């Protein structure tokens, strides 16, 4: 079942050209040159119920703008958006009760007050039944392992703990779709992992649709099954994450630990088309085409047996794939 259907949406901002210096500012008072920027261009896609979609792109690519149009904060300049059968921008209460949004750089918590109080406020705002509220809260507290922290003043919580509270706050009303805009920004690795695991578990149990933007590709790799890549406001890829990795990677990485001077290994490899990514006396990372990786490994194993301590074949990582895509 499709829960999000987007047809040809664009978003154009207008802004003023700011001129330099005091003279420029005075000039601006009299005459402002209006410029416009197309943040999103003719975007079309649809998302199924329960999908976990990673939405990536460079800064200013249009990710956040798209999320804001999907949630109803911003009105598209043109095109049609249908989310759960509603036009998001109408911001009907029935619609708002079925979605949620978390922004990594913005908080909905009250600094001087424990998070539990903010949860209780959302209970009133969303009209959540007492039993449902208690059950959901218990479940989320357990999933994120935050226990007593919900009774601690928010200002005394770490950044990671605060983000966990933001997540609880945004899931209390059991939304069907949640938009997450860089939820792991600035967090330590452990917190990132807890949040990723929690999102996955919550999706599996409640079939919630998750749309997540992140610059941290680990987020996307661990949480998402689908991928959308946006660049300069346009979709560059839209499909299964696996397909993307398969399609984009024609190479694999061979990691070799050497037991002595790697000169001989290098000599053997020299006969094949490889690219040495990094090397020192103890280890080498080599990029090899998918087709020849097995053959090369075999040759190395038989001819340089004594020079090699360990050897492994790995997929090129997302980071690299994405970088290649943009270059």
């Amino acid at each position: 079942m499709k829960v999000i259907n987007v047809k040809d949406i664009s978003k154009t901002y207008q802004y003023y050209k700011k001129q330099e210096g005091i003279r420029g500012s005075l000039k601006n008072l009299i005459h402002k040159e209006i410029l416009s920027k197309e943040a999103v261009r003719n975007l079309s896609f649809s998302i199924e119920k329960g999908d976990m979609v990673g939405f990536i792109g460079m800064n200013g690519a249009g990710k956040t703008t798209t999320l804001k149009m999907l949630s109803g904060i911003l009105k598209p300049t043109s095109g049609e958006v249908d989310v759960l059968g509603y036009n998001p921008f109408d911001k009907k209460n029935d619609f708002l009760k079925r979605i949620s949004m978390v922004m990594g750089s913005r908080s909905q918590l009250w600094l001087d007050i424990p998070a539990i109080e903010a949860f209780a406020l959302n209970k009133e705002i969303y009209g959540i039944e007492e039993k449902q509220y208690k059950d959901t809260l218990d479940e989320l507290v357990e999933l994120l392992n935050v226990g007593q922290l919900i009774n601690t003043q928010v200002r005394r919580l770490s950044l990671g703990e605060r983000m966990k509270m933001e997540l609880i706050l945004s899931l209390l009303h059991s939304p069907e779709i949640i938009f997450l805009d860089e939820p792991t920004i600035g967090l330590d690795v452990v917190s990132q992992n807890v949040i990723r695991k929690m999102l996955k578990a919550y999706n599996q149990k409640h079939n919630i649709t998750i749309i997540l933007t992140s610059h941290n590709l680990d987020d996307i790799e661990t949480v998402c099954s689908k991928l959308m890549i946006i660049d300069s406001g346009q979709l560059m890829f839209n499909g299964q994450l696996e397909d993307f990795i398969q399609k984009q990677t024609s190479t694999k990485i061979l990691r070799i630990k050497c037991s002595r001077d790697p000169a001989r290994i290098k000599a053997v490899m020299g006969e094949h088309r490889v690219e040495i990514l990094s090397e020192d006396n103890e280890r080498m990372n080599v990029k090899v085409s998918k087709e020849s990786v097995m053959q090369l490994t075999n040759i190395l194993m038989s001819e340089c047996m004594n020079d090699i301590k360990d050897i492994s074949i790995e997929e090129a990582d997302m980071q690299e794939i994405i970088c290649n895509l943009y270059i």
Partner: protein
Amino acid sequence: MLRYFNIIVKFLKYAFIQALEYKANFILGGLFEFLWVILNVIFFKALYQNTTSIAGWSVDEVLLLVFICGLVDSVHSFFFASGFIDIPNLIRQGNLDLLLLKPINKRFFLSFRLINVGQILNVIFNVVMIIIYTNKITTNLSLPNVLLFILLIISALIIVNAFYFSLSMLAFWVIKVNAIIGYSQELFTVGNKPINVYPKMIQKIFTYLIPLGVAFSYPILYLSHKLSTSSLIAGFAIAVIFFALSHVLYRRGIKKYTSATS
């Protein structure tokens, strides 16, 4: 309705928790407004040493005016002022985004978000003084009279609310409006004087353009039987119109925000 009441109770609770956290702020919070009322009382008492009537107003009527102005100011500060002052920050820092997604009346939410409990003593003080001075001016008030008098004070609150809400809405067009809001406090200084002392032209301004004259002077004029029925109706109408105008401004501001920001 119950839901909205519960939400106000929650906001009150948060305000109390915060007040206890910052005790000095809590104690000092209402002191300024209290002193302001007291200084005005001293000023008018001194002025009336030399005369019994200014522009037809007795000393008790003028003091009642000071207390009504004080009550409206303190109720406004109690519920709305902090929230309104914060609106430009919400816009600038983008926190308005998430607020727009709450399934609730946004104007209500923006208005009651930040309650200033430090004002509670001022509210009580002014209410008590209003009761005392109302009894000094007139002794045989019927129930409908009392209700109309209260209604006039409520419409004063609506006018003040709409006025300050409109000012904070300017933040959608001009990002830094805190200074404007700050200066506009001066309007209270003008508004808490009997409207009749001003020249005709200025009276018109304080009736139709910045209706603080309507807000503060009308309740007393009504008690003293100096307010015609048509003025009474006009007073209520002005409150409704001002509230509606502030809502138009609010709608436009939100519209600009959602179509222009990134």
